[in-house]
């Protein structure tokens, strides 16, 4: 047991775990993550691909290995901190005495005789030492000892940082177990009562409905989107419970689920009109129908179907405007699906099919893409963030300092001893002690002010 806890509490383990996690993370950024199966076989070959899959490298950050190492790191953090905390706590609670033995062997120590010119030296000294905060005093035969115990609690800073990291872990676990990440596309005017949740096959029903009253997108001259927003209404039992606009970076929470404006798109709605030219006879036909139905070719020689729509097809960095992806059926021709572009009616001629397709008109309906998440762990994660940002400056830039000043009278002179220690950043501490020494000798040397 002690062996195990010794192992778990070692800093060596921390460092090794951190390095292994870093290396695995690098691997996770080099190997594409969560791609469809075939891709890995094509990229790496059968053997390597199946090795990667069994090691979990194709979904690294959720792989048993990675999660186990994170768990290990968490355990290491807990054991390590519990191991050291009692000792640190003692140092924080410790009240060093004003006995000369206590400061005999401090890293900083300066001893000197100073000529006494200032009869009010005690008052001057307490002015100087006042800057150090709470100062204890103890009189002894012909002299006095001052002691300042500065910010002993900063020794706890590192525990604040470590607990902040544990909070991130716990928050992450809570989010992963009890939270979900969902997505839903809603057409303008449509009402939905479910969302699609990542990792679940059937949609997740909601106990309320969401209606998209309106969707708007504005563009810059460059064609990049400037802003998009949806006007949403949440309905409970058929009654409107909340109407709210939803914009990027401004999420809305309803019924415990937070909605984010994440994407938008358009799809075909209503009637689509094609013009077909028979390449042999030159005859022109008009074919129209609802976008989601099958279309028939002239003379009932098979038909076609629209399997995709882009309001601006982009290929090799060029944009070609709106187009539909058409799949021919039952024509005897073995043609792969092809694009029919509105702006380039002649283009389809090159395909060399029986007909040349041209897209005459269509109706476009916008849909809004919402991210719909529940994450009960976020509060803990944010608490972790705050603690970390408080803990770091305390841990790195503050130190526990103990300063003793002994002033003893030996007739005309004063024997002054300044001693102290800092638990961190001794270089800066000894500089500041030199400064303090200067102030002290000035205070002791001050002539009595003339009225």
């Amino acid at each position, binding site marked *: 047991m002690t062996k195990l806890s010794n192992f778990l509490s070692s*800093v*060596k383990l*921390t*460092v090794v775990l*951190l*390095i292994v*996690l*870093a290396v695995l*993370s*690098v691997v*996770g*950024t*080099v190997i594409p*993550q969560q791609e469809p199966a075939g891709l890995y076989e094509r990229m790496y070959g059968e053997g390597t691909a199946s090795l990667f899959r069994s090691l979990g490298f194709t979904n*690294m*950050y959720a792989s048993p290995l990675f999660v186990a190492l994170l768990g290990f790191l968490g355990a290491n953090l807990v054991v390590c901190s519990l191991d050291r905390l009692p000792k640190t706590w003692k140092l924080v609670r410790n009240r060093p005495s004003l006995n000369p033995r206590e400061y005999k062997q401090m890293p900083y120590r300066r001893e000197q005789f100073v000529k006494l010119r200032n009869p009010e030296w005690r008052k001057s000294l307490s002015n100087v030492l006042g800057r150090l905060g709470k100062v204890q005093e103890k009189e002894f035969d012909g002299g006095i000892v001052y002691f300042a115990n500065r910010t002993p609690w900063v020794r706890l800073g590192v525990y604040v940082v470590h607990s902040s990291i544990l909070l991130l872990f716990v928050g*992450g676990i809570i989010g992963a177990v009890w939270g979900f*990440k969902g997505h839903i596309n809603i057409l303008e005017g449509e009402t939905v009562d479910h969302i699609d949740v990542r990792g679940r096959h059937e949609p997740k029903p909601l106990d309320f409905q969401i209606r998209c009253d309106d969707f708007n997108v504005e563009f*810059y001259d*460059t064609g*990049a*989107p*400037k*802003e*998009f927003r949806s006007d949403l209404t949440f309905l409970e039992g058929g009654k409107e419970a909340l109407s709210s606009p939803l*914009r*990027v*970076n*401004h*999420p809305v929470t309803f019924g415990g689920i*937070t909605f*984010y*404006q*994440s994407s938008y798109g358009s799809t075909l709605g209503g009637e689509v009109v094609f013009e077909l030219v028979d390449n042999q006879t030159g005859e022109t036909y008009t074919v129209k129908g609802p976008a989601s139905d099958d279309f028939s070719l002239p003379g009932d020689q098979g038909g076609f179907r629209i399997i995709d729509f882009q309001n601006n097809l982009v290929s090799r960095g060029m944009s070609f405007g709106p187009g539909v992806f058409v799949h021919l059926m039952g024509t005897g021709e073995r043609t792969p699906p092809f694009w029919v572009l509105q702006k380039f009616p002649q283009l389809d001629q090159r395909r060399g099919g029986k007909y040349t397709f041209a897209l005459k008109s269509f109706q476009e309906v916008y849909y809004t893409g919402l*991210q*719909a*998440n529940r*994450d009960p762990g*976020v509060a803990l*994660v*944010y608490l972790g*963030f705050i603690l*970390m*940002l408080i803990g*770091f*400056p305390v841990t*790195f*830039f503050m130190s526990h300092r103990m300063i003793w000043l002994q002033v003893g009278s030996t007739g005309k002179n004063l024997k002054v001893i300044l001693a102290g220690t800092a638990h961190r950043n001794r*270089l800066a501490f000894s500089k500041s002690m030199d400064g303090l020494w200067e102030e002290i000798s000035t205070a002791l040397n001050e002539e009595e002010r003339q009225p």
Partner: protein
Amino acid sequence: MTSSLALSIVTFIYLGSSVLYLFYLVFRTRVAATMGTWVALGGFLLNTYGIIMRWIESYDLGIGHAPLSNLYESLVFFAWTIILCYLILERKYGQKTVGAFVVPFAFFSMAYASFSSSVDSRIQPLIPALKSNWLIAHVVTCFLGYAAFAVACGLSVMYLIKSKKQRAGSDGLKFLPDPPLIEDVSYKMILIGFVLLSAGIITGSVWAHSAWGTYWSWDPKETWSLITWIVYAVLLHARYMKGWSGNRIAVISIVGFCCVLFTYFGVNFLLSGLHSYAASS
């Protein structure tokens, strides 16, 4: 003067300053170091002017936003933070030899911004996800942190050179600061960088949560910033708990800065993800 002209000139000023500091390092001509400082300060002021002008110009174009939104602007800001960091350090410690190890980083950043054909220097409008108050907090903390790491890296290189010479028994390079001082300052820069990097990751995380609903999604840039964070965390634990110092710490510091550079550039060009808008095209 337009921002792009000013910033082009800044590139050459930083080059001039680097050359002066290097000249001082090689020939120990005191006046070269003094000039190096003044030239760097002049470049810094013009750099500041360029950033402010670019900010104003973006408003004149009707797409006003802080100039921290694409690769070009971040490179310009990176150079600015490096020089800021360095000038404060020089003022505090008076070690002008450090300039030769740090100022060139600012020059490279500006040169890359100005001359690389893959860096678009046009002022672009902000896509909706970037329209957030977190943008400024995130970019400023990250790049101040990167600058601190850049300075620490320069100091670590200096440390390795100096300690190698010393071990070889040579008393050359005497004019370089003592290894303990270099180590101390470098360590301080690493602490500052580490806190700022943490703050940068946290602000980015909070921002991502408000934009996409996930504070962490293991996108390559996020992952690489975490890798960088881990490298420096290892450095701190090795030093605090295992008493590592000297060359070993200097080497980790250089490795850490390589990770910074990969997080910054490598991810944009070699890997893809959420931060693709920060890439050039």
